[in-house]
């Protein structure tokens, strides 16, 4: 062992510059990174630069970066395109409604779970409520379309047999697109998101509750005056992040729910990019739309992160 260290020492003397010494010492770590780093360049950064296609004309077979500069032509085009503005409106409407209706649910759920007396029951509820998070969107939509089926679905049978109404084709009716999107999202993610709030509730000092109890606070008052204020920072961070992701809806779910009949409300920016780009092969035009929403998303997320950092000293990254 002593011999080995000596040999290292002599080598270290020979490698004069500190950088050389550093590389000699840690070359194995650098070697490990080569493949993953190459992965990031190839699959994350080259497509990022591929966005340059938004300013260039694409010709089949002549590479993914297009052939000649056309400047802002495609941007001007979609700014005049009513289909783009419809998609933009739909994206914002769906996102905002989604936040308004689903954001409070995990908070309420976490607080209620915490108030359960039976530890076993709490555990069962918790475990089962995570499960929908791991179910494929395809399965969620397939199950929904069977439950909502106009001929044999549970809901329509209830409406017809018990409420004596006419059956409704929910999945095809534009009026129900947003409620179905929001409800299925709540079904899938309420339990999962509640984990973050539960962790935050667990961290509350129990002396606070004891003090509140001595002051005569009942349980509802304890929730209102101890639990909620204590998890408020977490709620704020989550809300800010949610707003930062305003433009990135569950694209796959919308695509699965999309029908020509409900396109008036279900066409969002991502589905528009998908249709113009991949179905109609207007690559440059679709890239321009995608880049536009990507940049807005970048601005939203990074400012959301900055706000959350300045408010709580804690960002996501």
């Amino acid at each position, binding site marked *: 062992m002593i011999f080995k260290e000596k040999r290292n020492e002599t080598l270290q003397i020979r490698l004069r510059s500190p950088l050389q010494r550093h590389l000699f010492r840690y070359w194995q770590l650098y070697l490990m*990174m080569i493949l993953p780093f190459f992965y990031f360049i190839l699959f994350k950064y*080259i497509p990022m630069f591929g966005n340059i*296609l938004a300013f260039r004309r694409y010709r089949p077979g002549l590479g993914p970066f297009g052939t000649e500069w056309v400047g802002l032509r495609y941007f001007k085009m979609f700014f005049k395109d009513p289909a783009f503005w419809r998609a933009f409106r739909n994206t914002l409407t769906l996102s905002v409604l989604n936040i308004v209706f689903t954001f409070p649910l995990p908070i309420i759920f976490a607080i209620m779970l915490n108030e*359960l007396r039976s530890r076993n029951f709490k555990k069962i509820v918790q475990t*089962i409520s995570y499960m929908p998070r791991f*179910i494929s969107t*395809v399965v969620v939509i397939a199950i929904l379309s069977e439950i909502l089926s106009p001929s*044999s679905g549970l809901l329509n049978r209830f409406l017809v047999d018990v409420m004596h109404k006419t059956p409704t084709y929910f999945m095809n009716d534009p009026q129900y697109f947003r409620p179905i999107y929001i409800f299925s999202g709540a079904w899938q993610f309420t339990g999962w998101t509640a984990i973050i709030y539960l962790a935050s509730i667990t961290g509350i000092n129990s002396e606070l509750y004891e003090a509140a109890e001595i002051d005569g606070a009942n349980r509802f008052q304890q929730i209102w005056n101890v639990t909620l204020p204590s998890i408020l920072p977490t709620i704020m961070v989550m809300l800010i992040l949610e707003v930062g992701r305003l433009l990135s809806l569950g694209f796959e779910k919308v695509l699965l729910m999309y029908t020509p009949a409900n396109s008036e409300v279900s066409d969002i920016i991502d589905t528009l990019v998908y249709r113009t780009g991949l179905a109609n092969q207007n690559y440059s035009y679709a890239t321009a739309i995608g880049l536009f929403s990507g940049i807005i998303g970048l601005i939203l997320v990074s400012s959301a992160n900055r706000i959350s950092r300045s408010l709580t000293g804690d960002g996501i990254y």
Partner: protein
Amino acid sequence: MAKVKDTSISSRIFDVMIWLVMAFMLIICVVPFVYMIALSLSSAKAIINGKVSFWPVELNLEAYSKIFTYPNFFRAYGNTIFYTVVGTAIALVMTILFAYPLSKSYLKGHGFFTKVVIFSMYFSGGLIPNYLLISSIGLTGTRWAIILPFAISQFNLIILINFFKALPTEIEEAALIDGIGYFGILPRIILPLSTAAIATIGLYYAVFFWNDWFNGLIYLNTPQYPVMLFLRNIVNGTMVVGNASSASADTAMLGISTKSAVIITSTLPIIILYPFLQKYFVKGLTVGSVKG
């Protein structure tokens, strides 16, 4: 956790209300699956007459024996198993190889590499540039198109980096002095200490590959379709499950029990493994809360 000592009547009423809401939540989570199982085990006639709710009517296994005769279903199921196993294995190796060096903040360039990872979470290439890249490097139409581009998820990478950072460094330093390089330390010391974290991100990857359908849709040909895409296509009606020519009166209703059987079989691995794995699922959120 707050210990509830209050035994007043209002507190008891509060308890009952919470209990009811939680029970409702449980039912809401479970009922869709119960309904699917009931449909898949019922006869076409019972479904058509609207008799099936949460219990199979005229119990039979016809739907299951049917889907197992469809070559398309079998092939898609096999494909999905392949994508999940190979995809998860590659993803784990790549993620470990990047997470370990990135957990060493004394490494020169550490800041740069971390920034490379984090910036790619904020801004990405978008659908079209990604699609054109995959086709220009010749992956379109090969199985690798839905495996390689998803080899590292930044979220999982950060979980693992934070986990590695939290490991005690003493054993590692001792091993370095003994002349075991990082190539030896990673498999012999670090990985055995990290089984919980690796199981967690491995499960996230496996669920991702199992549930993926969109990438299959845009990159693959029909024989390579994963089972989720098969399911989506039969729900959409763009793919015929079995033999299209044998259209009888109850084909549509047979379709419903068949669809339900596909839904159940394609979700089965997750439902069966779920009780055993759920503790790992949750660990991911607590082990390496997303912070850099």
